[in-house]
């Protein structure tokens, strides 16, 4: 009597998300980008502990400003006597806050409107499509520039609000269209029909069956959009209509460093480097996430 044994090679079943994460961990570019971003998040969260000075503290002891690095100010000071390193650290806080919050807002608006349009159809859908068509007919960053340009407040604190509002207003249509398209495709799938046929409510179908199945395209789009939002804020601030001084923004620091390109070029290149590395890390990670979630690239 021979014993019957399982001759198939044992393969542990893996969820698509777990498999994507495994592929992501094997990608060195993705790992390095994620590490850089992790450091940046820590810097942003603990800015007051890391920065030696406050972002608006002015050191008046220098005869010539801006001044090159010395023992007191490791990266030098700007034309107002503000410590460059401290402003870079607080600038990370501003950039990351802008990127993360705006993308969260955009996901909330985009998912609700996109699902509403795809599930209710009718005039909800028509309204969304016409509205997004109109928004796509105008370059979005330019729209944001005109918006903040016109509603620009006089109080520097309020400049955060105008930047957030303007960028949120121009940035949701892409996500809404993405969600709508995904939802339209998913609602015709057999498992949704099966759920509907046994009397599952619309709300439950959307939250249990449709939403979880479109998470990966949303995550990919959101990762890349964080970079886009950080760049958008930096552009507004560079033009002088974004975050207002004394609050630090990398875009504004780049702009403020321009007159000293000959004498103190690092005043411009430090924030430029910070911005460039952040956006590059986000884009490299975004690309890697997209590849990891793409079922066609599975080995």
């Amino acid at each position, binding site marked *: 009597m021979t014993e019957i044994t399982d001759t198939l090679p044992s393969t542990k079943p893996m969820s698509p998300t777990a498999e994507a994460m495994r592929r992501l961990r094997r990608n060195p570019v993705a790992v390095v980008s994620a590490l850089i971003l992790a450091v940046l998040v820590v810097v942003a969260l603990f800015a007051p502990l890391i920065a030696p000075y406050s972002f608006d503290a002015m050191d008046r002891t220098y005869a010539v400003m801006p001044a090159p690095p010395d023992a007191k100010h490791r990266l030098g000071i700007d034309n107002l006597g503000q410590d460059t390193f401290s402003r870079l650290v607080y600038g990370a806080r501003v950039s990351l806050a802008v990127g993360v919050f705006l993308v969260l807002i955009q996901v909330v608006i985009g998912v609700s409107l996109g699902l509403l349009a795809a599930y209710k159809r009718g005039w909800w859908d028509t309204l969304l499509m016409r509205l997004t068509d*109109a928004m796509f*007919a*105008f*370059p*979005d*960053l*330019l729209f944001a*520039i*005109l*918006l903040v*340009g*016109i*509603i*620009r*407040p*006089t109080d520097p604190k309020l400049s955060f609000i105008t930047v957030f509002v303007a960028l949120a207003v121009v940035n949701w249509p892409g996500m809404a269209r993405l969600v709508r398209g995904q939802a339209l495709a998913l609602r015709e799938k057999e498992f949704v029909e099966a759920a509907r046929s046994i009397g599952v409510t619309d709300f439950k179908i959307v939250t249990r069956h449709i939403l979880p199945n479109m998470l990966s395209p949303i995550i990919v789009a959101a990762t890349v959009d964080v*970079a886009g939002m950080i*760049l958008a804020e*930096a*552009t507004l601030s*560079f*033009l*002088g*209509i974004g975050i207002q001084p004394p609050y630090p923004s990398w*875009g504004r620091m*780049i*702009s403020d460093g*321009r007159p000293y*390109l*000959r004498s103190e*070029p690092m005043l*411009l*290149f430090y924030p*430029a480097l910070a*911005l*460039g590395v952040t*956006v*590059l890390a*986000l*884009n*490299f990670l975004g*690309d890697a996430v997209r590849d990891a979630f793409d079922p066609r690239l599975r080995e």
Partner: protein
Amino acid sequence: MLSALRTRLLLAIPTLLLVSFITFFLGYLAPGSPIDLMMGQHGDPAIRKQLEHAYGLDLPPLTQYGRFVWNALHGDLGKSFAMANRPVTQMIAEQFPITAFLALMSILIATVVGLVAGMVAALRHNRLLDRATMGVVLVSVSLPPFVVAPVLTVLLSLKLDWLPASGWEGVAYPEYWILPVLVLAARPTALIARFMRSSMLDVLRQDYVRTANAKGLSPARVIAKHTVKNAFLPVLTVIGNSFGYLLTGSFVVENIFGIPGIGYQSVQSILSRDYPVIQGVALLVAFTFIVVNLVVDMLYTVVDPRVRYESSAA
């Protein structure tokens, strides 16, 4: 084709009305009036009244908007608050050609370099050259013009002294516009290269390319005759969309290099709350965008005979 053109142009009217409506009423509701900026600290109420009347700012908002639209239809976009009463249309007529020239030169360079880079990357798929090209592409997409510009300025102007760091002497002096054009072209070049690569990879997998190879055509002929033209189609959309970026980019680049185009003017007008100029520029941008998209759609029918305008198309 002609009737389709007419429908498209008619559809542009609601878009332009919407843009003018939004910019007008945002300007109306905005904090801080341009009169405040003109009068400075000391405000004599009588002079204020006089100024408001002269600019029609004492009329009810809908009447003001109606007047704005009526005048705009007659080619009058009002007068600048900040620039000594100069007509907005005159300012646009002087400055827009400069911006348009920079945009066209940039798109020309971006298209040529982007197409070649994308093709080369696709033909060397997954090899070193492909990976290197795509790395450069990702860097160019990630870096904004205000990071690229200072790097190039320090390198080409301050260190090597090849080009002036800023200024504008007209189209006849390329040393002044080469740098801005390169900075503007960086991102569109990268996007075009990326799309051309993936589009080429798609086409190279098609049956008709296999057939062409199987019947013994030389590789060069297969690429020239069967691949490039088909791969180019989706890229055309990217080229069209790049104009939106170039207009936005001109706001930044013209400021960096001190070029007296519409982007430079717009930022100055925004900073001085010069609403008539802002409204004029918004309309101009919307109009340019509509025309560019129309031209791209028309080009589609030229490049691909399969795409035809139906007379019933809305």
